[in-house]
């Protein structure tokens, strides 16, 4: 039995520069950055004080009325996923329980979910208010915490921060009773989740899967961890929109963003039978790791070269057929170098001539939300046959070799490739095919 084919029929995106696939695409073509000085908290003493924030964002408008109370127990990462899920299903035209319980067009048992997530940071004000009820002699006192302090936390406090709650809220809202997974592999999570979900459909375990990832590290704890890793740009505080410069000669570190993307994957014949808009087909997928990833201060591309080679081989194409490389582009100089070398190792000498594009100039680094947003952008680029511009790109950094441009370029190709990798050394790559 030949494997079943998998189409992308819906896109949901919550990005610092736009919400929703159509608006997101417009911003990519305009080259509009979503990076600004951080407003959610006072960043004064952080060396990097800018980020790709979601301003005035709440999931409340994206959940059914009878589920609005639950938004209170959603960490921001969860809210992003829930909002992106609503947009993705609406975009696909599939009617779930969450869209209209009286008119569903999908068998709940055949609807799966696979959403990548990160280490969700505690709301320090919420936890701090409780912690400060357990202070004795100016110091936190564990005995007081155990006997009374902890009761100041809402009983459901833990459930706000479990990474699987992105998937769980989405499955509950949309009535997805099929297999549900939560991948926590840093920046690679989105590609791995979408790849694994495509495999699930291919082997017949589900007909439709909502897959992707979301994360927010735009909070004091998340910023602190990135700062300790010395990955952040500290020279762009006075010029936020031009601070994040993937592969550019002026690249000087990552900028933290928040957001995510979810795609609707659907078995191809089902998608065609209902006349769905098919953005792309999943043509190839590869995953890999680099054992050197353990040394977090020494950049790697997480085995991206092996993951990309596998994805291209599975698609059964030559690298010359690729119309675009959607690069991960963290803008951390060592990481950018490793990434370029990985694409070259996987795609050969042609790699530097294939038109390339990186999102981060406009959005910052989105961690578990990055990969899926990149796949959304890749699907839109393929569908529209345009390679968007890379915000803040002027000239290649020494040691980097990708064909980036400061202007959108027309595409005339059937395939694009997109990959991501993260701290710890894991990577995932997808090849998308245009559906004729």
């Amino acid at each position, binding site marked *: 039995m030949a494997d079943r084919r998998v189409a992308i029929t819906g896109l949901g995106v919550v990005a610092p520069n736009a919400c929703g696939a159509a608006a997101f695409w417009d911003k990519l073509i305009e080259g509009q950055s979503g990076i600004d000085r951080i407003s959610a*908290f006072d960043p*004064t003493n*952080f060396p990097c004080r800018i980020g790709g924030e979601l301003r005035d964002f709440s999931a409340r408008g994206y959940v059914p009325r009878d589920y609005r109370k*639950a938004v209170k127990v959603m960490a921001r990462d969860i809210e992003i996923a829930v909002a992106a899920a609503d947009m993705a299903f609406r975009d696909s035209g599939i009617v779930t329980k969450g869209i209209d319980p009286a008119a569903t067009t999908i068998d709940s*048992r055949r609807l799966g*979910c696979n959403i990548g*997530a990160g280490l969700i940071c505690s709301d*320090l*004000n919420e*936890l*701090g*208010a409780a*912690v400060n009820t357990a202070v004795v002699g100016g110091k*936190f006192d564990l005995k*007081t*915490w*155990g*006997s009374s302090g*902890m009761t100041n*936390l809402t*009983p*459901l406090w*833990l*459930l706000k921060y*479990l*990474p*699987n*709650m992105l998937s*769980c809220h989405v*499955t509950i809202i949309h009535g997805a*009773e*099929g*297999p*549900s*997974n*939560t*991948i*926590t*592999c*840093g920046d690679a999570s989105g590609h791995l989740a979408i790849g*694994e979900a495509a495999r699930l459909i291919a*082997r017949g375990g589900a007909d439709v899967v909502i897959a992707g990832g979301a994360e927010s590290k735009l909070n*004091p704890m998340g910023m*602190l*961890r990135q700062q*300790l*890793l010395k990955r952040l740009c500290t020279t762009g505080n006075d010029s936020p929109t031009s601070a994040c410069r993937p592969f550019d000669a002026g690249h000087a570190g990552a900028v933290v963003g928040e957001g995510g993307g979810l795609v609707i994957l659907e078995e191809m014949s089902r998608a065609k039978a209902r006349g769905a808009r098919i953005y792309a087909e999943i043509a190839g997928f590869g*995953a*890999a*790791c680099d*054992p050197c*990833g*353990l040394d977090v201060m020494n950049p790697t591309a997480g*085995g991206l070269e092996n993951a990309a080679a*596998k994805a291209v081989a599975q698609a059964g194409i030559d690298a010359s057929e690729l119309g675009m490389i959607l690069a991960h582009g963290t803008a951390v100089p060592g990481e950018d170098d490793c990434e370029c070398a990985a694409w070259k190792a996987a795609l050969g000498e042609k790699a530097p001539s294939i038109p390339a594009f990186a999102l981060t100039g406009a959005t910052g680094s989105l961690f578990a939300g990055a990969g899926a947003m990149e796949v959304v952008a890749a699907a839109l680029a393929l569908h529209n046959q345009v390679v968007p511009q890379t915000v803040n790109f002027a000239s290649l950094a020494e040691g980097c070799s990708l064909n980036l441009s400061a202007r959108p370029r027309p595409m005339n190709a059937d395939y694009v490739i997109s990959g991501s990798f*993260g*701290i*710890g*050394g*894991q990577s995932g790559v997808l090849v998308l095919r245009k559906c004729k």
Partner: protein
Amino acid sequence: MSKRRIVITGTGAVNPLGHDVESMWKAMLTCQSGIRPTELFDASTFPSTFSAQVTGFDLAAHIGQSITKHPHIGRHGSFALAAAIQAWKQSRLGEWSKLDPRRLGVYLGSGEGSLDFDNFTGLLVDAWKDGSLDTAEWARLALERMRLQNEVQQESNMVLAHLAAEFQARGPAYNVLTACAASTQAIGEASMQIRCGDADAIITGGAHSMIHPYGVTGFNRLTALSTRNSEYQTASRPFDQTRDGFVLGEGAAILIIEDYELAKARGANILAEIIGYGASADAFRITDQDPEGAGAAASMRAALADAGIDHTQIDYISAHGTGTKQNDQVETRGIKAVFGNNTKVPVSSVKSMVGHLIAAAGATELITCILAIRDQVLPPTTNYHHLDPDCDLDYVPNEPRKAKVEICMSNSFGFGGQNNTLIIKRAD
């Protein structure tokens, strides 16, 4: 086209009952309890003052000189590394010269690392001004006090990085964190990777430690933990009418799984074959399981269908059996929905002895299924004395039982409704 078959060729475990698989198994067959007053921190005023801790563990005893490669490894990572070394040695995969590192994967259900709690709470106190956090002051102090590696090791994919480094794996690497179902899901998804040809062999399983003030706070606030502080040794009472919550444990369990043809070709000792994997979501509520056990039943049915067998062929079910009021009742209903109201299938929960290892629970329990098949004996549900009318299956109460065991099912259900089931059979 026939599917690639998946076999288990190595197992390793570190948990409150032992620091290797055989010690754990001996303890289970003699009904030992791994539960004691919590010593990892001062829990004396917490609602639950006891837990199932790993004690006397020394990573160096497992890893030797190689420990220098892992200077910053955290507590659950250490458990995982020791368990992985045991599994790797047993599999003898490292002796096989044709192993392509790009075909060797790592697929774990590993939890987050432990929070740097003293530093963390200290900062919240010192930067607290007039009822809210002064983030500028917090940042100033945190940049001085917080340590890079303590923070990095909290990301749940770092255990993957340690195992990939130790065994020089370059294949697919995933971590999943579907709460209490994580390592069962990891093993199931890892099997699917081998089945579809993405890898030849995968180091899989799980690791977790939530026995720290933050973890116990979270579970105590949910009222999920047993608070039977004066009877801690018998506090984990799955399926018993007097059960009052689970007992938090910690540990790791790692398995080496590989393509059957590869295992045969290299003359490996095959411990068992994974024949079925099922997954489902309750899609019900974040706080409660589907009361009829529909999600649990769907997971079990999917695993049976994947295995291509009938429920009557299952000789034993290793239950999720946490000892919470709800889980045990729902799981019982789910089993009945699949196996029939009058089923005689034996079901037991080793959590009665080892506690609930959260993300590491499923992999630990799957290893007990392998041993049940090997030794033709079922591990018991200890502390079972009071019949709950809603839980009326054969729970193998209080002592191990000789039985004919060829095919076993192992269930894991996560908070939030992610359900997973694995089925294994004796190697042929």
